[in-house]
């Protein structure tokens, strides 16, 4: 029984989330291979070869895979699928994009966003924005799974797997990449940061997010936002933490001016320690916070920055 894990990467480095997806594969049990699909991505393959518990790294290095277009990647993965009973990808935007396409091409269902493995065909996943936790058994012979990385601890990286090149190229020829507009930030990635500080509607405007920056710099934290803050146009969507944004589970999550709508809680309530700063003592965020400060964020934030 073999498991294929799709590597998350940017053609130069392997994303740490892949280590957690490999952990999910280990929980299923079987011979684990990693697929690195990209262009000029040999350095990723070398990193992937060191991931513990992996016996083989398949490298599909071709311009057709450079931007990991779903149309091309899904054909590649479908072609490889015959050898595997389970195919896993991290539930980030790349995996979410192409994996259902693979499932449909193989005529099997997909189990999305698993947070635990019960057995080789039974998995646990949140539904209704995490207000219910479902245990689901797949009835298909092949299991197509996306893994929510907050559910698993990363595996180590002192292994040595065999690296094998995949020569065949699948280009569907129905889509092309036009451009990327990447957010540039010196701060850690939201998904990987051990501390996250997020602002909500209470921040009042985008400029006031600067109040979070000084604190984030002192703590080495990533900056996030609630959907309300994104909807109001304060900050871009890639900062959104929540049911339909990013799911994070840092050691420390500081929610500032966030009321705590269920859609936001879905994205952060698995954090180890939650701090809430809000002037409304009745705000639902205080029901999930370990420590709360009831007060005006415009007073609290400068004081916090000064005293850290």
């Amino acid at each position, binding site marked *: 029984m073999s498991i294929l894990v799709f590597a998350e990467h940017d053609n130069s480095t392997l994303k740490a989330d892949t280590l957690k997806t490999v952990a999910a594969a280990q929980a299923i049990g079987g011979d684990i291979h990693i697929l690195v699909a990209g262009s000029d991505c040999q350095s990723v393959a070398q990193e992937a070869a060191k991931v513990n518990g992996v016996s083989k790294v398949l490298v599909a290095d071709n311009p057709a895979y450079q931007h990991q277009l779903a149309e091309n990647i899904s054909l590649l993965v479908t072609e490889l699928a015959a050898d595997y009973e389970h195919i896993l990808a991290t539930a980030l*935007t790349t995996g979410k994009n192409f994996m259902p396409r693979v499932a449909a091409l193989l005529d099997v269902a997909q189990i*999305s966003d698993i947070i635990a493995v019960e057995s080789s065909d*039974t998995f646990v996943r949140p539904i209704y924005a995490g*207000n219910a936790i479902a*245990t689901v058994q797949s009835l298909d012979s092949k299991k197509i799974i996306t893994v929510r990385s907050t559910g698993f601890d990363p595996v180590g990286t002192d292994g040595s797997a065999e690296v094998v090149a995949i020569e065949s190229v699948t280009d569907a020829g129905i889509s092309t990449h036009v451009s990327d507009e990447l957010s540039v930030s010196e701060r850690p990635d939201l998904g990987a940061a051990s501390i996250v500080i997020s602002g909500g509607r209470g921040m009042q405007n985008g400029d006031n997010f600067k109040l979070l920056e000084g604190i984030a710099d002192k703590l080495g934290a990533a900056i996030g936002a609630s959907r309300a803050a994104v*909807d109001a146009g304060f900050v871009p969507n890639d900062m959104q933490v929540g*049911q339909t944004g990013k799911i994070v589970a840092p050691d420390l999550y500081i929610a500032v001016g966030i009321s705590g709508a269920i859609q936001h809680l879905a994205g952060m309530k698995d954090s180890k320690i939650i701090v809430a700063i809000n002037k409304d003592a009745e705000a639902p965020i205080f029901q999930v916070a370990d420590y709360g*400060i009831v007060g005006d964020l415009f007073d609290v934030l400068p004081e916090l920055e000064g005293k850290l």
Partner: protein
Amino acid sequence: MKVLVPIKRVIDYNVKVRVKADNSNVDLANVKMAINPFCEIAVEEAVRLKEAGIATEVIAVSIGDKSCQEQLRTALALGADRAIQIETDEKLDALNIAKLLQKIVEEEQPQLVILGKQSIDSDNNQTGQMLAALTGMPQGTFASVVKVEGDKVNVTREVDSGLQTVSLNLPAIVTTDLRLNEPRYASLPNIMKAKRKPLVVKPAADFGVDLSPRSKLIKVVPPATRKAGIIVDGVDTLIEKLRNEAKVIS
């Protein structure tokens, strides 16, 4: 060009769902239902394409029992021209939903299919991509900008690292993200007008699609609850607690 918009009836996004005492599923009895928010954005985008003279007809489709006609009427009130209900009492897997939608695509031959990126009940994020695979169409998922240009559509996508723009050959599938647009409110005259727009009901069984379930729901439980925290009296206490009690900062 024709635009097809599949929509889903779900629990209203403001309602906090409860798990049934026997852990068989969530309890949806007497709960307020609504059109899935991402589907509403999809309807709005299609209607805007029509208003811009790009789309000629907007067709809403939903799969479910009679109650989903309510959401189809909502779509008609927002500006869709006609509606199709695929009638079934079964809760179908995303793959089976996509297979039924594939049949509608074959019948209607739309140039663009716009769907919500995920429904807020099952949180699967699958149907659009599966429909794209089954119809052989390219896909622009998590869209924040959609621009039809000749025989292509440019879709700007919300990805983890920012924005990515792709160019897709038409016909194509688009799934909506939050910032694509802000849906309008249906006006009273339009709600009245929607009642007279055509709504066709087609039994799911008539499509000749094998709808047997692909997965089995074993149990549903409430999430682990966090233990209640404390309100601290100020920044000094907070920092002290984070350093010495929680030990999450140094």
